[in-house]
């Protein structure tokens, strides 16, 4: 623990650092961070990260690492079970009738599989129960295709196949993380538009495993007073969990919070700014990423640490820095899909058609 030797005992006690890190360590033992990303014990990974940090900042790094909100798969799977319990309580949907009564959509691939496995829901790949694609963009493409100038037989079959799912009363979108709320509000925009032209009575339910107050505000702006949209979230992280908020309550002392913020600034300037691989992410996010993507300021760690968490946790590029929770980047180029254009086109052309009538 050489890198940590100079830290005063009093400070360690003040922020309950050992107790907090031990708890994360125990939670990791119960359900480890993916071994292909991080092998050693949490204390060892902290020690390694601290070696790259100037001694003046090490206490703050320790305080930051002690306040990681570690949400492993064991909790995330239970969050999916909670989602189904709520669907049952509010709408009478259960593991027996869900696949036949609702259209399941996913914000990211693999979520429906995990949701069904966690809840022991059988038959998710049966084509008579759910569409072959569970992305709203793909459904919109199929719907568009069924309206194109193709052979009548194919058109009828495609129309029948797409319509039987779009006509369902419940449209359920599964989302793992809604942290800045950008992706979810775009997805909801597309869902609302497609629903408006195909099934305006559909009840849209969003099941979210982890949602922040930032995302909640953004989504509320998107759905405004649309009562047919219901958000069911399992874990909710409000301003208390944002290290760039004056309402942050992760740390006992305001001085510690200020020190952690300074450390994030140092890290962005001295380490992260030199990595050109993050230029496009910086452009998209705005700012220098010191508090993570879209300035989310989180210390959240899930099985692939989100980029909305502060980079001190996930940035990993030896010999410059080794964060304790390396992540696999899901997006590198930040290019956009055609989904929005297709849905917008469908929406506008249908609206135009109905006004022409």
């Amino acid at each position, binding site marked *: 623990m050489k890198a940590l030797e100079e830290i005063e005992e009093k400070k360690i006690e003040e922020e309950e650092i050992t107790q907090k890190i031990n708890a994360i360590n125990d939670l990791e033992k119960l359900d480890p961070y993916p071994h292909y990303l991080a092998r050693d014990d949490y204390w060892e990974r902290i020690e390694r990260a601290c070696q790259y940090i100037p001694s003046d900042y090490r206490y703050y790094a320790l305080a930051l690492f002690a306040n990681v*909100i570690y949400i492993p798969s064991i909790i995330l799977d*239970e969050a999916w079970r*909670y989602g189904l319990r709520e669907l*049952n*309580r509010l709408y009478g949907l259960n593991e027996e009738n869900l696949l036949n009564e609702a259209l399941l959509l996913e914000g990211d691939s693999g979520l429906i599989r995990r949701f069904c496995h966690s809840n022991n829901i059988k038959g998710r790949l049966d084509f008579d129960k759910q569409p072959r694609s569970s992305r709203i963009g793909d459904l919109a493409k199929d719907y568009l295709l069924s309206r194109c100038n193709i052979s009548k037989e194919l058109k009828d079959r495609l129309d029948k196949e797409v319509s039987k799912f779009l006509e369902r009363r419940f449209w359920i979108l599964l989302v793992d993380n809604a942290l800045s709320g950008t992706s979810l509000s775009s997805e909801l925009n597309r869902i609302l538009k497609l629903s408006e032209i195909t099934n305006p009575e559909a*009840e849209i339910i969003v099941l979210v495993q982890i949602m922040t107050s930032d995302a909640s505000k953004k989504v509320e702006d998107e759905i405004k007073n649309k009562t047919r949209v219901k958000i069911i979230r*399992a*874990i909710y992280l409000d301003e208390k969990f944002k290290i760039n908020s004056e309402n942050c*309550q992760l740390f006992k002392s305001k001085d510690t919070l200020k020190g952690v913020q300074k450390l994030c600034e140092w890290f962005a300037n001295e380490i992260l700014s030199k990595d050109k691989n993050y230029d496009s992410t910086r452009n998209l996010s705005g700012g220098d990423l010191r508090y993570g993507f879209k300035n989310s300021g989180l210390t959240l760690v899930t099985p692939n640490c989100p980029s909305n968490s502060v980079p001190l946790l996930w940035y990993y590029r030896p010999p410059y820095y080794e964060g304790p929770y390396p992540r696999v980047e899901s997006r590198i180029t930040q290019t956009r899909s055609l989904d929005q254009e297709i849905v917008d086109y469908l929406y506008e052309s249908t609206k135009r058609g109905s006004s022409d009538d």
Partner: protein
Amino acid sequence: MIKNVTFDAVPPQDVVSLLKKSNTLVVSSINYEQRTLKWISTLPGDSLEAKFKILVLRSMYNNIGLLEYIKNRNIEQAKKRLENLKVSYELVRITYPAGFDRDVMKQTIRSMYQEVGGDSELNIILEITGLPRAIIFCILHAIYELQQQRKLPLYLYIIYTTAQEYPHIEYPHEVGTLVTYFSNKCFHDFLRNGDNLNLLVIPGIYGFETCLLIEELKKIDLPKVNFHFLVPLYQHDMLASMKVLRMNPSVLRARAYNAKLHFSFSLQDAMKMVLDLTDWEVEEDAKCLIAPFNVKPLAVSAFYAYIRLLEKGMRNVDILRMSGLQYGSLYSLGAGEINYWKVNINESEDKNLSGK
């Protein structure tokens, strides 16, 4: 016979409409926690016909002057509020914790019931925020017995105000032993070598009860244990939920005790899960213990789980609690949101996809 219990969240206005009826009995208690005042402070100025019984708890000895002063101040505020609203209320003195007599308590509830109208349909609103668990169990038991005897409906509503935060304490504010509530036995008298055990533990925020329970369990040779931990992760207070995990290292080492770990995500979800996880089908000689060390609504849920197991014919069922010796802390600071539930017994769960 209890086959099915649900706790349905109801809007505050539903409870307010019950308060306008004379066949409604409200049982509440004010202590030194700020949150115990919140519900009464937010009552509307409509003509309220319900009868309010405010339990004032005082120990036979070891009362702490400063806390008593805060409690008296809060009670005065509550009285003022109720008088302004022209509500019919009565302060009912209960000796607690030292000198508490559960038979006297049950008799008190029965008298209140008779006074409000034992011959008609009745609503009981139990505001549990300021009530100790032992008293909650006692009142629920009295209500359950009344429900069994009555031909007319008796509807039960639960109100609970969450805390804004919990104080940081360096050591347990209660020093005591683990006892079973209903059979009133020490842990080691209830559970013996060679017993088969079904156990559900809902860890509390300070962790010491769970820690003690684990230590005690290690000393007993139990051939078959069906052990569950339920950790509530509350949306309204994720920081406190995280603290529960930190303060209960034994929960995080659940595998070491062959325990199954479960998580819930709201108060209502946790209340439901207590019932789901205790739906044990076991041989009648097996011991069944529920340890609701977390927030009070879970004690309500644990009570109905206990009754259901008893009605199934299991003889050795009980609820585990910590026998505290004295108060040493305010327990909570500030007042959060007020929750309202209707306790539905044996109502059909079938929503027929109709939504709510």
